[in-house]
C-alpha cells in the first residue's frame, strides 16, 4: 500500500462534511492510504492540500456554505493553493454557469445542468476509459446526475459521453458528474491526490480495489 503522509503540512485531503456522501469519500481516502479529515468548520481548512466536495443535494450544500460563512474560507484556501474535486453535486457548486440557477463557487469554466437525466429511475451505471486517470476502464455510477453541457477553452475535458461531459479539470479544480466513491474505483481519488501534490506508491489496487464492497461506507457511519 501507499505511503501515509500524516503530519506533513498541506498533505491532508479534506472531505466537506455538511451533507451527502461524506463517508464514502473518507473510506476511499483511507483505502488509498492518504491522510484525510472531515471539514466542517473554518479552522478545518488550514492544512488542506485538497478538498473533496461530495455528492448530495447542491441546493442544500450551497445554502449551508453560505449561512455559516464557510464559502469565503473555502475560496481563500483555494486562492492559496488548495485543490478541489467536486463529485456530482460538488461539480455543480464548482461550476461557473449553472442552467437556470445562480452559480455558487464559480471556480471552473463549465456550464452544468442539474439533474440532467431525469428521475431516480433514470440513474444508471456504465464504464469508460479515462486514459489520464487509469490504464483500464473504470466503473461509473450516475445518480440523478448533472450534465456538463459546455466547457471553456481553459478546461481540459477528461471524459465526454454522447452529448455531455462527465469529467473535466482545470489547473486547480476537478469535476466528475459520476460517483467513483460509490464503486471500488480509487483511480480518481489517486488522480486527485497526485493533483494535490501528494506522493503515492504505484499499486494496482490504487486504481480498482477488489476488496471494496457496497457496504464499505458503513464503517464510517456507525450507530451512536
Amino acid at each position: 500500500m501507499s505511503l501515509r503522509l500524516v503530519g506533513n503540512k498541506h498533505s491532508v485531503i479534506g472531505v466537506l462534511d455538511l451533507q451527502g456522501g461524506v463517508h464514502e469519500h473518507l473510506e476511499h481516502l483511507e483505502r488509498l492510504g492518504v491522510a484525510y479529515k472531515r471539514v466542517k468548520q473554518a479552522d478545518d481548512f488550514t492544512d488542506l492540500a485538497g478538498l473533496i466536495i461530495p455528492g448530495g443535494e447542491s441546493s442544500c450544500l450551497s445554502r449551508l456554505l453560505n449561512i455559516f460563512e464557510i464559502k469565503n474560507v473555502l475560496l481563500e484556501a483555494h486562492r492559496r493553493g488548495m485543490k478541489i474535486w467536486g463529485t456530482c453535486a460538488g461539480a455543480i457548486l464548482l461550476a461557473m454557469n449553472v442552467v437556470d440557477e445562480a452559480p455558487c463557487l464559480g471556480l471552473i469554466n463549465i456550464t452544468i445542468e442539474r439533474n440532467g437525466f431525469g428521475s431516480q429511475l433514470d440513474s444508471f451505471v456504465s464504464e469508460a476509459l479515462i486514459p489520464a486517470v487509469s490504464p483500464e476502464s473504470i466503473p461509473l455510477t450516475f445518480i440523478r446526475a448533472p450534465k456538463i453541457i459546455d466547457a471553456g477553452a481553459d478546461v481540459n475535458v477528461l471524459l465526454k459521453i454522447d452529448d455531455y461531459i462527465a469529467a473535466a479539470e482545470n489547473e486547480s479544480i476537478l469535476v466528475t458528474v459520476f460517483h467513483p466513491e460509490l464503486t471500488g474505483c480509487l483511480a480518481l481519488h489517486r488522480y486527485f491526490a497526485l493533483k494535490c501534490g501528494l506522493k503515492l506508491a504505484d499499486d494496482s489496487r490504487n486504481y480498482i480495489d477488489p476488496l471494496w464492497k457496497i457496504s464499505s461506507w458503513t464503517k464510517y457511519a456507525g450507530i451512536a
Partner: protein
Amino acid sequence: MDTKRYELNVQLAQMLKGGVIMDVTNVDQAKIAEEAGAVAVMALERVPADIRKDGGVARMSDPSMIAAIKKSVTIPVMAKARIGHFVEAQILEALRIDYIDESEVLTPADEECHIDKTKFSIPFVCGARNLGEALRRIAEGAAMIRTKGEAGTGNVVEAVRHMRTMNREIRQLAQMPVEEVTGFAKNNGLPYELALKVKELGRLPVVNFAAGGIATPADAALMMQLGCDGVFVGSGIFKSADPALRARAIVKATAYFNDPQKVLEASMNLGEAMPGLEISQIPPEQILAGRGW
C-alpha cells in the same frame, strides 16, 4: 429489480445523508423547502397532523398534485403509498417520482402483507420501530429505513424510543457469538441472513433516517446524535408559525448536530413550534406506529 438497480436505490439514499426531508402539500411549500436546503420533499395532500385531526381513510395523494410539485423543484420528490397498496405504488412509479414511502401515516390497505418491493425499479423507504421490523422491510426490498416515531404529534418521544431500540438490538447482535444469532433472529423476527449482515457491519446496511414527531432544531440534532443518518420533518415545519425560518433552522441543526453553539444559533427566534400532543392522550386505535408489523 436487479441487484444493480437496488444498489443504485440504496446509494441515492446515501446521498441524502445529513439532510432533512420535508413534507409539503403544494408547490409553494415545495419551493420554500428547497430554498431552505431540504434534500428532498415528501409530496402529500395533508400533513400527518391534519390526517390525525380529520380522521377517515387517508390514501395516496392526487397524482396531479404530486406531478406539479415534481415539476417545481429539482431535489428528489417522494410520495406515500398505503402499506400493502401495491397499485398505489405502481401509479407512483409510473409517475416517475424518486422514492416511495410505504407509510403508516396513510390508512393501511393490507393488514397482512407489505408491498413486495422487489417487483419495482423505484426505491422504497419504510418505517420501523425496531430492528426486526427494519430488516423485514429490507428483506421485502426497501432501500432506506426511517423510524416510525409518532407522526403528526410534534412529540419526539416515540422516534427516540424507536431509534434507541434499534441501536440496542444492533449492539446486542454485534456482540453475541454467532451461534446465538439464530435464536435472537427467531425471537425478534429478524431475517437470518440480514441479521448476520447487521452483526458484521454494526449498523443497518442501508441509510436510516429519523421520522415522526420532529418539530425543533434540537429534536433534529437529538436524533442525529442518537445515530440516525438524517431526518424527516412532517407537520413540524408547515404547522409552525414561520415555516421558512424553521425549515432553514432544522437544516442547519441537522448538518451541525454535534456543535451545540450552532444548534443554539439555529434555535433562536423561530416563533411558535407546532402544537404538540402527549402520546398517552391519543386513543390506542389512533396510534399510527402500530400500523404495519
